[in-house]
């Protein structure tokens, strides 16, 4: 069996108790190989974000086995509320890189590089609160990329991003994939999913208790 950067085996997740119990993920199997991008596509409430949060390690599955192949994934789970709003974009990126284990000196270099790649260099010294929604989405992607992880977990990473930003983001993530980085991400449409890589699409019917399968 080839090396995997992430594997889910029969992963299920329920929320609530008693009558309010709700099955959100139902026995999901997936694996991400180095250099592969797996996109979960489905409507709201189909469990995409839940699967990604489990992959990021911030949510435990109710049952099933998650085998992470990397110690720390690069994570972007929501751009709107995940930054220190009164600090600059640069300080935010450097801080999160440092928390992920990058030395202060290296973090400056890596932040400048990833910001340049994503076209964020001019926004680096703006406070995050002043950035547009699209800019914050790109900033969240930059934060996930900055410490060069071998796995990226991205929840709808390009929400609000303009066409130029999308092209840049595709190029940057594609480059990382060619270097062996695996990607697990979510999207709303099959077209968007196929732009990125291999699609696991929502299996249809009521989102409650759904899971994702390769589309026929």
């Amino acid at each position, binding site marked *: 069996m080839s090396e995997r950067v992430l594997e889910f085996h029969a992963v299920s997740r329920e929320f609530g108790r008693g009558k309010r119990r709700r099955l959100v993920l139902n026995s999901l199997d997936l694996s991400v190989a180095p250099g592969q991008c797996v996109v979960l596509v489905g409507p709201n409430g189909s469990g995409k974000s839940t699967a990604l949060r489990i992959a990021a390690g*911030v949510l*435990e599955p109710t049952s099933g086995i998650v085998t992470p192949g990397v110690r720390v*994934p690069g*994570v972007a789970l929501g751009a709107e509320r995940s*930054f*220190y709003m009164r600090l600059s974009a640069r300080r935010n990126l450097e801080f999160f890189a440092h*928390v*992920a284990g990058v030395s202060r000196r290296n973090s400056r270099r890596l932040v400048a590089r990833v910001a340049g790649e994503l076209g964020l260099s001019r926004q680096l010294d703006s406070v995050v609160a002043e950035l547009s929604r699209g800019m914050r989405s790109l900033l969240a992607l930059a*934060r996930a990329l900055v410490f060069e992880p071998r796995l990226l977990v991205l929840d709808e990473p390009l929400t609000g991003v303009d066409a130029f930003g999308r092209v840049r983001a595709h190029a940057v993530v594609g480059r990382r994939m060619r270097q062996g980085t695996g990607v697990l991400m979510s999207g709303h449409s099959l077209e968007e999913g196929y732009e990125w890589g291999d699609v696991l699409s929502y299996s249809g019917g009521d989102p409650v208790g759904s899971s994702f399968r390769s589309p026929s």
Partner: protein
Amino acid sequence: MLGILSGLVSLAMLMLVGRVVALAGSGFESRVGMSYTWYAVSGALVHGLGMSALGAFRRVVRREQLQGTLEQLLASGRSPVVVVVLAGSAELVLQAVAFVSAGFVASWVTGTALPAPAALGVAGLYACGMAGLGLASAGVTIVCKEGEPIAWVFGMLSGALGGVCFPSFLLPAWLAAAARLLPTTHALALVRASLGGAPLPKLPLVALAAFGAIAAVSGVVVLRWGLSKARCAGTLARY
């Protein structure tokens, strides 16, 4: 600025109450060994420091939840307990510096001798113990989201019984016995003894050190429990 202003107003009020106590006779000073003003100021400062230390980690956890950065920090691969401790420590140090500075300002305003190094050491030991308990408070906050009982119980009992504004010998015997279970009582006894130039009594010192050790261990255990429970329930980012 508003905090400094309200601190100065509180100091003025305590000085006025001190004058009232002095007018009533010299019984208080001869029994306690210091003026009422300095007694109450030292009580308010040490109690305030303890309460700040108790709430430091809880405030940080709540702030990170509000900002949405808690999940992002916990996805960083670092130990969740280390993340919370490091994030809260900065707040703790800032609060400690603020309270020590307030102590020096108060001694200058009231014309009392500067706080002795031993008093600062005892206050530091007390703050560390309360910070340990604060870890438990943060763990409970992560699970309960609101209505955290540890800080409420310790805050209320310490303020009422710990000898902050009046000596515990004024309490009924059963309440005075309960007061001896509070770390604030021992911390204040030690701080006031060192301010008065007396040698530090051993029993309160041992009690304070034991409280600190137990609080730190139980704090880490409860915080681990809280983080694990919230991770299982999927409520880490909720507040």
